[in-house]
């Protein structure tokens, strides 16, 4: 079971380069999951105790806007990791998440893994190296969307 899970984790680019021993450590906190479409994964503001490595399917991240319902800000798909709020205090989801299609993946007990990382800084550092780019990518994407790249050319805005 663990070997099969380790194979699935290793196959994902997100964990590329992680030593086999660390993969096994990680898998001690993981379990395979399947989620139906349109299923709420978590709500904004809830305690962030898990994260998911998506092998197939799509999940929408969004916010509930009073008067406008749930607004999608981004979708994440196969190969992506869902959830990084478990890494940093206050350990609460910044956005909500709902599956847009059936999802298969691996769910990790992030709260327990966080404790393990506290005790094993090498593992913690290896995970940080993989999660930080996720945060950076999403920050950059948000900034680019603020620029509204599709606007008519020639509109110059001084920095």
């Amino acid at each position: 079971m663990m070997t099969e899970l380790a194979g699935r984790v290793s196959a994902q680019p997100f964990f590329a380069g992680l030593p086999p021993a660390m993969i096994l450590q990680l898998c001690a906190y993981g379990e395979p999951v399947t989620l139906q479409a349109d299923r709420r994964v978590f709500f904004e503001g809830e305690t962030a105790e898990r994260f998911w490595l998506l092998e197939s399917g799509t999940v929408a991240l969004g916010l509930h806007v009073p008067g406008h319902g749930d607004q999608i800000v981004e979708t994440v798909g196969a190969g992506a990791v869902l959830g990084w709020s478990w890494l940093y205090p206050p350990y609460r989801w910044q956005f909500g998440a709902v599956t847009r299609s059936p999802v298969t993946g691996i769910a990790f007990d992030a709260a327990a893994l966080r404790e393990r990382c506290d005790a094993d800084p090498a593992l913690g550092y290896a995970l940080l190296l993989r999660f930080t780019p996720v945060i950076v990518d999403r920050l950059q994407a948000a900034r680019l969307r603020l620029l509204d790249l599709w606007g008519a050319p020639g509109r110059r805005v001084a920095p």
Partner: protein
Amino acid sequence: MSLPAVPVPYRIAARRADTADTVTMELEPVAERLPAFAPGQFAMLTAYGVGEAPISLSGVATPDRLVHTVRAVGAVTAALTAGRPGSVLGVRGPYGTSWDVASAAGHDVVIVAGGIGLAPLRPVIEAVLADRDRYGRVAVLVGARTPAELLYPDELARWERQVQVEVTVDRPAEGWTGPVGLVPALVAQAGVDPAASVAFVCGPEVMMRFTARALIARGVAAARVRVSMERTMRCGAGWCGHCQLGPLLICRDGPVLDYARVEPLLTVREL
């Protein structure tokens, strides 16, 4: 033989409104016919009495006809898109470098388009599909601001039956079930071997930069990432220097350039 700086009259033979501000036109010569255009090359289209704008080839209808997709963003392009079948436009060209699609034979192909950038890439996609066996896996990644601004929905549906097509929008509308986000994020979804891939990228320059970085981070060689650059083309023939980017004149040395060559120039501030 006409003078190269004198527009040749072409008549609008067919016109299709793609979105609220974008039109695809098929142009046929009134008398003289210009040399054949290759995908990636551009024409200087003249709205008589208004001005000229550089517009890439966006399709191949018949050998006699030029296909251009124009988005109304200024006075000239607004006048061009206002043309109706029977109206006469001026055309100069063909200018610039082509995508050189055939050189990607034997490789996987990633085509990444942002907004109106899908227009110059449409003939690339059609060329690959017309000669499908010559290419490996093919992924078409498309981004737009909103679903209503997506170009060529019928073609996207047709392409999706033959190759991987992923479409994302920045701002979803009611009923949109596809991905939400920027097109560079789709690069991770491309089902290709990055080390064996050739990429064709067109869209806003910042989008191309981030897409190229994402492709290169996945393992696509920078020299195999082709981008279509846009600067203020005027003469189209490398005479006037309006489209200069460092040592390059985009109208002559581009618009299609490999990213390894153009990347160092993209962060140089203009005077």
